């Protein structure tokens, strides 16, 4: 369960993050975790516990205050918040964003002025300067993978929420990332559309993609995850195999949190 840093794709040590405006929610205190290649990790916890901030720090949409992040061979470290971000650090942050794919919470993250296939091709064309035919070929393959080949030339405004999120996954995959991050990818969807999105993530898992998912879909977390991380108040409280965490949580905060889900059909023994 505990991965050694050398054997891990992702290494995070003493990651700290707080905000200028003094907001309590989303603060991170000394997060350390290692994640192996091919793992599917679910991140759960009450709102404001720092799950989203953790993802945003990991792909450098937020710059960490202090700590160490390594994804593959891209490293980023900062001694303290007083250390001014230098050229080298910003460069590493940019490389990190290229290596890490991200899917956002709402389904409005697709670019509305581009068709679905143009959305998927844009990253490779602009960032990697991939030749157009090659980018298109990749995009078509990815559309097939997420089951959207018939919608390639539609504009995002005509897609359903589930279709949008699958297109967003394909768009992130087009950059051939080392890891995929999902920030509550299904929370804005109608219940009947959730399954199709989760299925894509399960398929990716079976292909060996490393994925970190912030989610409230407890059933999915329990069934599909290699392990689950429970966060509260900016700290990792507990992480364990899904079945173990749900049936026999060690920490009282975990128990308290999971109690909220007993009424929703989840079998939790507390």
């Amino acid at each position, binding site marked *: 369960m505990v991965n050694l840093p050398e054997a891990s794709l992702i290494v995070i040590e003493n990651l700290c993050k707080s905000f200028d405006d003094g907001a309590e929610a989303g603060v991170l205190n000394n997060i350390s975790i290692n994640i192996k290649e091919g793992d599917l990790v679910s991140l759960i916890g009450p709102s404001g516990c720092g799950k989203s901030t953790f993802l945003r720090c990991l792909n450098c949409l937020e710059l960490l205050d202090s700590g160490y992040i390594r994804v593959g061979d891209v490293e980023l470290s900062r001694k303290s918040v007083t250390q001014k971000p230098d050229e080298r650090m910003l460069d590493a942050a940019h490389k990190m964003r290229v290596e890490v794919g991200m899917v956002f919470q709402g389904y409005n993250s697709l670019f*509305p002025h581009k068709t679905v296939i143009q959305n998927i091709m844009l990253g490779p064309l602009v960032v990697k300067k991939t030749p157009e035919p090659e980018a298109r070929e990749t995009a078509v393959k990815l559309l097939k993978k997420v089951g959207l080949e018939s919608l390639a030339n539609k504009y995002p405004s005509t897609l359903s929420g589930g279709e949008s999120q699958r297109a967003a996954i394909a768009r992130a995959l087009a950059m051939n990332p080392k890891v995929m991050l999902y920030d509550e990818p299904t929370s804005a969807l109608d219940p009947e559309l959730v399954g199709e999105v989760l299925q894509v993530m399960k398929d990716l898992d079976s292909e060996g993609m490393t994925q970190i998912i912030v989610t409230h879909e407890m059933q999915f977390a329990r069934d599909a995850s290699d392990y689950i991380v429970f966060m509260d108040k900016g700290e990792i409280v507990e992480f364990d195999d899904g079945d173990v965490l749900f049936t026999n949580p060690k920490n009282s905060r975990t128990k308290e949190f999971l109690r909220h889900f007993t009424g929703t059909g989840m079998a939790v023994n507390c």
Partner: protein
Amino acid sequence: MRRFLISMLVLALFAALAPAASADNGALRWGGDSEGGFPYMFPNQQNADELIGFEVDIVKELAAYLGMTPEYINNAWDNLIPGLERGLYDIAINGLEVTPEHEEMVNFSIPYYKTFLQLAVRRETQDISSLDDCRGKVVGTLKESYAQMVLEELGDVDVRTYIVEANTYEDLANGRLDAALFDAPIAIYSAGFNPEIKFVGPPIGEIIYAVAVTKENRELLTKVNEGIVYLRDSGKLREIYDRWGLWSPIMAAEFNDYSPRKVEMTNYDEWAENHRPELTLDKKLARYVSMLPTFGEAAILTLKVSVTAMVIAIVFGLILAIARVFAPKWIALAATAFVEFMRGTPLLIQLFFIFYGLPNVGVTLNPFWAGAIGLGINYAAYEAEIYRAGLFAIQQTQWEAALALGMTRWQAMREVILPQAFRVVIPPITNDFISLLKDSSLVSTITLVDLTKAYGQLAGTYYDYFGTGIMVAFIYLVIGLPFVAFSRYAERRLAEQDKDGKKGAAQNFYRTSARWR
């Protein structure tokens, strides 16, 4: 064929240079206001491009005596003296009265005409027969004129000032004013033939008209004085005044010339003929058609100034918006201050400042560029706000999604944000252009003859503010229409993309749900 063309070109070139060559002593650049009014100077009713009037005749004779070519520079009457100081022209002549205030700013030649103020009332008015009777009444006169001063000194008079004299007599006739006090020549030409208006009371005060020259230009002043003495003594001035019906006992005394008239009042008669109330429809229509070339030229100028100003506004506005959104704090603050300043002060003041004020610090722009730049930077402030709103109309997720794909800030801006923001700002920017087209009328105050100035000239000349007004409004509408159409087209395109290529405008959901209470 080619050789023929070239020789034609050379010929044309010589023809263009010829007038300059014929006058040995160069050009006599004189400033006046083509809207300054009859009988001083005004567009010819038969040919609106030609300026006529007794002062035009005087300048011609004066220039001929000096061996110079008269070159007319148009400027608003209010600004004639500032324009002289700014060096737009060498002399100013357009009913400029010799007053202590004026004499502080410029030097005056010896007078070329002397007259008085004439009080006018409606035909049926009984209780006003002298200046003193004006107390407690509403009296109209020309803005910043001697008459205004006289009325204000009288006290207890409700003085209404006008820029266009014809409007004053129109308001007198329709009852908005109780009386009108004007220089006698204006009174004669405005109302001398109007059956609804009568002149009352003795001559009031003394008005002296002279040519204005800058304090520095003493040499020219001497030459102008020589010229006026010559014109007076040779009887040429008397002839001009006779033709225009402006010879009076006061002038007889001034010039010590009590002889009977030698020429007919041809110019006055022609004027009066054209202004006796009610022309036939045919004549009226023919007159409107004859206005078209003048309006056409003016419309082109309006369009040119507007388009140039809009290009400046779009580019400079973008710079301002980028400074406000992306630049370091102090630059952003300066841009904000600039935007608020430009939006918070009147455009007219800004134009005056640029045209008349900046030469004091060595920046002299020609009227076209002063107008275009003035309008342009004023509108830039508004465009900047539209761009800013456009940028902030884009959701943060779009920015983050682009960055998360590994784009740099600039790539995200170029590929994701700006194309979307552009779609948002097209309709309001087009809208602003239509607004700018109308605001361009303010350039008429800095010597440009745009549509509004042309309207003032032609309406004043023909005493027809109604028909000419409809005509100019229609011209503004027509040149604005293509931009209205473009705005609609852009809006429709936007709606099409949102509906995935389905044709048709955005659905008006307010109307379709109207059946609900």
